[in-house]
């Protein structure tokens, strides 16, 4: 085999592509300036929900279909995938949001108050209706990234800070690739990590609200991630008071005991996205770009990595490829 392919970026996409390629015997090295895994990657701040059906409420069809590969892929990498499904609820006056959500998604079952209490005892008595998406799952993002890193190190993949000057490159830099991909934009997201020993949840819970939609993902040991705002801005710093207030207020509405929770972290970054919020593979010369995961990094990176590997190993044109000017 020739020289290793250089993968630019050690975030979710870079690590998934590297994992998929090395598994197929293609040598790679990873070029990343920060720590791997590290907070410079927007996947560090993600929720880790593998919820293709829920995402179908506003995402295009490929997200729902390709996202269904994710849970099995992560499990194959040795990542702990919690297959407890997800739960969607709405407060009394927003209950009609639940009907709308149900109309626009598949793979759910309606729950009454009794069934909610059985599934999530701490939410019992607080909601009279909910939707259960039983085929969904979640993972802990930072643990998943660390697992991929371990696997790559075990396969002797080199991690370097030296920028390549030539050779074949897979560019997985996320928003930083804006310098070349002119239609890439940032969508700012803010999140909060809390610890509460008073609330127990077994699966991600989405609270529908016309203005402040929120999800809470249990991370175990009383740790919860609240996410996430979605603002049309490429700003990667500066979580605002308003956004944090919205997230915390929604958590408090989900369960008042969150009022006494400890705030562990407030995080912010911008997700890389193309105009239709779908990911893309593009080949220009000796460089393949994989980008635009938007809010679907953990959900779609496995499918995108598979498509890139199919292209490199078997010359199969990826479904999500919209540009090919390659001399690979």
């Amino acid at each position, binding site marked *: 085999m020739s020289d290793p392919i250089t993968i630019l970026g050690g975030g979710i996409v870079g690590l998934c592509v590297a994992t998929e390629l090395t598994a197929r015997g293609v040598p790679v090295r990873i070029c990343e300036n920060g720590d791997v895994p590290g907070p410079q990657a927007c996947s560090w701040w993600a929720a880790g929900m593998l919820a293709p059906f829920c995402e179908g409420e506003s995402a295009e069809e490929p997200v729902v279909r390709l996202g269904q590969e994710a849970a099995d892929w992560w499990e194959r990498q040795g990542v702990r995938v919690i297959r407890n499904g997800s739960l969607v609820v709405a407060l009394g006056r927003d209950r009609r949001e639940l009907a709308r959500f149900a109309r626009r998604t598949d793979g759910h079952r309606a729950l009454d108050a009794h069934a909610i209490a059985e599934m999530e005892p701490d939410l019992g008595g607080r909601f009279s209706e909910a939707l259960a998406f039983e085929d969904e799952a979640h993972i802990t993002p930072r643990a998943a990234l660390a697992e991929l890193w371990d696997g790559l190190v075990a396969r002797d993949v080199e991690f370097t800070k030296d920028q390549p000057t030539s050779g074949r490159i897979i560019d997985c830099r996320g928003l930083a690739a804006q310098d070349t991909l002119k239609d890439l*934009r940032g969508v700012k997201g803010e999140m909060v990590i809390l610890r509460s020993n008073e609330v127990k949840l077994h699966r991600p819970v989405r609270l529908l609200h016309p203005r402040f939609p929120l999800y809470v993902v249990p991370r175990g040991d009383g740790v919860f991630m609240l996410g996430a705002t979605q603002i*049309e*801005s490429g700003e990667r710093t500066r979580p605002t008071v*308003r956004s944090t207030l919205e997230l915390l207020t929604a958590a408090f509405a989900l369960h008042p005991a969150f009022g006494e929770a400890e705030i562990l972290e407030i995080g912010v970054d911008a997700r890389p996205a193309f*105009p239709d*919020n779908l990911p893309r593979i593009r080949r220009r010369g000796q460089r393949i770009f994989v980008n635009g995961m938007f809010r679907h990094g953990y959900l779609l990176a496995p499918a995108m990595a598979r498509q890139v590997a199919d292209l490199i190993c078997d010359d199969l044109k990826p479904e999500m490829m919209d540009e090919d000017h390659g001399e690979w």
Partner: protein
Amino acid sequence: MATFYGTEVSSRLMLGTAQYPSPAILADAFKRSGAGIATVSVRREAGSDKAGNAFWDLIKDLGVAVLPNTAGCHSVREAVTTAHMARELFDTDWIKLEVIGHMDTLQPDPFALVEAAKILTEDGFKVFPYTTEDLIVGEKLLQAGCEVLMPWGAPIGSGLGLSNIYGLRSIRAQFPDISMVIDAGLGLPSQAAAAMEMGFDAVLLNTAVAKAGDPALMAEGFAQAVVSGRMAYDADPMEPRDMAAPSTPLIGKAFL
């Protein structure tokens, strides 16, 4: 043609640009509706260094007039600062002035609105104030230099339609020569048609289209309703009456 501050606008439908599933769907909705004006918020997106530029460039590419707004502002000072930023970003002196007075209903704060309108018109802005149907507030806004009024149909995002028909008829009648846009609260095309039939110059909506299952289709539905409603207004509709009025003559039939 509707005219705002001397500028003729081809479509009487104005669309907001928030909450769409993606910018691509937003662009489809504009294309299919032929909307003439796009409103865009800048307060929250601006960040510390015009970080919203990528999205704003997409809006500029829609090829329609841009009406930046001060959504998310709760005080005169915030609104004035945001308006200045918007003028620089979009190179326009148009500003849709929103000063929110109540978090839950997003009702405008009429006192702060009038004050901000005065400051901005003196500073050369062409102000489109988001207001209630209150006549006195309307009058004060006109005195402050506004040449357009944008009374609400119902609270923002509620989809309730025209919740105070009497008040809206009354403000339309009170200021017959002022360009007036029903802004906010519309959920269905029939409500937009009703507003146009009442003689309003245009309607502005966002959520009803952005949150529809098929935003582009809903946008087209609204566009047709706006055209129909305006046609009805221009056609001088019949007056409703309590008794049936047969459309064919009854001569020759016995009165029973």
